[in-house]
């Protein structure tokens, strides 16, 4: 087993020259790996791929009795895509979804990384660990509870912040009901909730960096900032890229649960996203086809973003495959 395995690398490169003869051999040499993959692949096929026939609901007049296959086709087949695109709010929904997602990505990517670096660089390891344990607590509170806390802080009439503003003679700020503030509150509370939780994966990555690199750096008299820049960050680059790509796949999600809990009529123009719209429309009309069509639309865009960013990442030597 050991000898053929070491020759794999060569075997694959030369396989390009004569694919027909070499590929079966390569597969056979890797048979034990396929055996390992078997249970997982089977699971994916049964629980993920088999139900995917459901996406055709997007093109049908789905009827509960007839089921997916027997239900008639929508007329025209793109009827539900059309309903989505022709909604007077389509442009606004797309813009809101895009902006909220974009801000969350833009401002949310760095804080957990910086926090992980601070934790790993902190000389007082007990203190760092204590802080880290505290930091991931908000992740476990549901948005309903978080919203209760936000209200206690930010309510215009009774919130703590506005009471202080009032003491200093300022006018109360309608944080939760104003279109000027709502998105900032959304993005801010999202980042705050998950900063500690998000840092865990980076800490795990930092733990995997070869410590001899730091020793070498220390011998060379490199400062800590230099070591972060030249050793730690490159060491976790793969993880950063991976998370970035995966997040792009869900770019059009933008966080339904959070927005659903926090929004109200007054902030619809800045807060209504694709998912909240589908929820409202689907709820009133029992419309599975519409939900499926919009889901397909979102997924297709996610796929383009993932493939694009992955191709880009591969140029820099990262990427998922």
């Amino acid at each position: 087993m050991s000898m053929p395995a070491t020759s794999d690398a060569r075997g694959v490169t030369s396989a390009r020259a004569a694919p027909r003869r070499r590929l079966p051999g390569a597969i056979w040499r890797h048979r034990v790996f396929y055996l390992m993959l078997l249970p997982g692949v089977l699971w994916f096929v049964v629980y993920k791929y088999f139900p995917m026939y459901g996406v055709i609901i997007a093109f049908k007049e789905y009827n509960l009795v007839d089921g997916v296959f027997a239900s008639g086709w929508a007329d025209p087949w793109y009827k539900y895509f059309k309903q989505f695109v022709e909604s007077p709010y389509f442009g606004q929904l797309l813009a809101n979804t895009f902006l909220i997602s974009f801000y969350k990505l833009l401002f949310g990517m760095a804080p957990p990384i910086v926090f992980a670096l601070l934790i790993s660089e902190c000389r007082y390891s007990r203190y760092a660990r204590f802080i880290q344990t505290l930091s991931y607590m908000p992740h476990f509170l549901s948005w309903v509870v978080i919203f209760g806390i936000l209200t206690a802080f930010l309510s215009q009439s009774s919130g703590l912040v506005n009471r202080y503003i009032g003491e200093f003679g300022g006018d109360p700020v309608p944080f939760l009901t104003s279109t000027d503030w709502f998105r900032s509150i959304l993005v801010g509370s999202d980042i705050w909730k998950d900063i500690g939780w998000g840092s865990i994966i980076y800490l795990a990555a930092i733990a995997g960096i070869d410590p001899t690199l730091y020793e070498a750096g220390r011998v060379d008299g490199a400062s800590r900032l230099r070591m972060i820049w030249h050793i730690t960050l490159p060491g976790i680059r793969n993880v950063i890229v991976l998370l970035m790509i995966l997040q792009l796949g869900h770019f059009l999600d933008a966080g339904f649960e959070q927005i659903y809990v926090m929004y109200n009529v007054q902030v619809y123009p800045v807060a209504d996203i694709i998912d909240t719209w589908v929820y409202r429309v689907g709820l009133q009309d029992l419309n599975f086809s519409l939900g499926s069509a919009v889901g397909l639309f979102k997924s297709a865009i996610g796929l383009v973003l993932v493939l694009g960013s992955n191709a880009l990442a591969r140029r820099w030597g990262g990427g998922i495959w």
Partner: protein
Amino acid sequence: MNKKGIMTTMLASAMLAGALSACSGGNANSNNQGTPETSGGNAAEPVEISIMLQAAEPLPDNYFMIDELEERLGVKLDIQTYLPDDYTSKINTGLASDSATDIFFLSDRNMFNKLAKQGVLFDFDPYMDQLQPTVDFVGEDNLVKGQAAGKQYGIPQTARAYQYSLWARQDWLDALELAAPTDLEQFQEVLGAFRNDDPDGNGKKDTYGYSGRPNEALGPLFGAFGTTYPGYFYVKDGALVNSLYDPAMKDALAYIKGLFDADLIDPEMLGNTKLQHKDKAFQGQIGMLYFNWPNIAREDKIQEYKTVNPDAEWVQLDLPQGPGGQYAYYDDLGAATVAAFPKSVEKDPAKVEKLIELLNYVSSPEGSQLVMYGLEDVHYEIKDGEIVPVSDEAAVQEAAFTYLFQFTGRDEMVYLKSKFPNQEAAYTFANEMPLLPVYNSFVDNPEGYNAADASRYMEEELYKFLYGKRSLDEYDDFLNTLETTFGYKAYMDAAEQQLTELGILE
């Protein structure tokens, strides 16, 4: 962990998995085993009936009512409870996979229509004779609420009492030496005093006149003009009117806008999606509230606001009288919670018989007594011909869940009186609120009309008018956009046609 350890753990959990799924696999299918052979053939075997309920709280374990009904009717009950949000998904997946419960409840007319159209609901028409006791209980003229396309697809429950009314701080009125407002002018004066004249005497301008949930609180104000929230159909002077097109709408908007302009209303009213207004009111920031009595008149709630401020005293107020009369809110005549069966139970006549028997039983004097109060001498006693709860607190607690079994409704006022002897004034007052009858639930949305988009537009523009972000002069432009961009014209046409066909205008 070494290899051996991992393997043992795996093996153990795999075996456990096998064992558990083996014993639960059987249960999973038990819902739809209702073939005539298994349930009807053997008389000793009780018929299994599964029921799905919309509930805010789960039933306690081994609830006495289940045993009681099982024994009295010779059935086996499987009761499931879900929150309203999940309930719809459960019904849909159940119907799609032929595993829906034998009885479920629909409170949304739109969904009821859709399901009826798709042919998944049981048609009660051939069984109406057998259902006579139920019909007598819920009322013959109520039945229309359970009809779609002329067929009886659901059995409507009796209507619940209306719970909302105006509530105000009596101690503030007293401090400001004001009488309860009777007309719109006084109403505004009182709100103004609550806002500007420091009713709590703390020297700060930190109080507001009025609050509530955005979709309810303006009801009494629209009502004073003889209309209600935008988009509702009612009959006025013998003609069918949509509130949007009622000339009174503009007057109402102008009046309400005046209240907003004068900064008398909770600035965050539109954000009151849960019970934020209750908290603000109890904290002494709000002088008047449109609210439901269980949240303010029950002993635990009274104690709550008295703890914050022992002087606080919340009282119910009469509606202000306006040019269009007095209405607290609207009453959608077609809306009701209806009990429905899946069409698939048709295949099992023995089960249908039992289901009908169950509905009839909870509508009978004996059965309705049981599902309203529980068991005599356990949960209630009869004193001087009146039903009163027993003194044992635990028993009263237990009986608190009987409402879940009132499948066809209840005799509401009698029920409330026995459960809440101390709140009688509050719920009687609320139940006597005059409501504007509207017909929206009888309207089936026309193809291509997106109700969610239209209602968002209506709501948004309504508040733009009220907050002065859009001039009322543009009201006709607003209607125009609604009719064209949002397809409201098609909806209006469909509604008028359907309502005329139903014979609402006579």
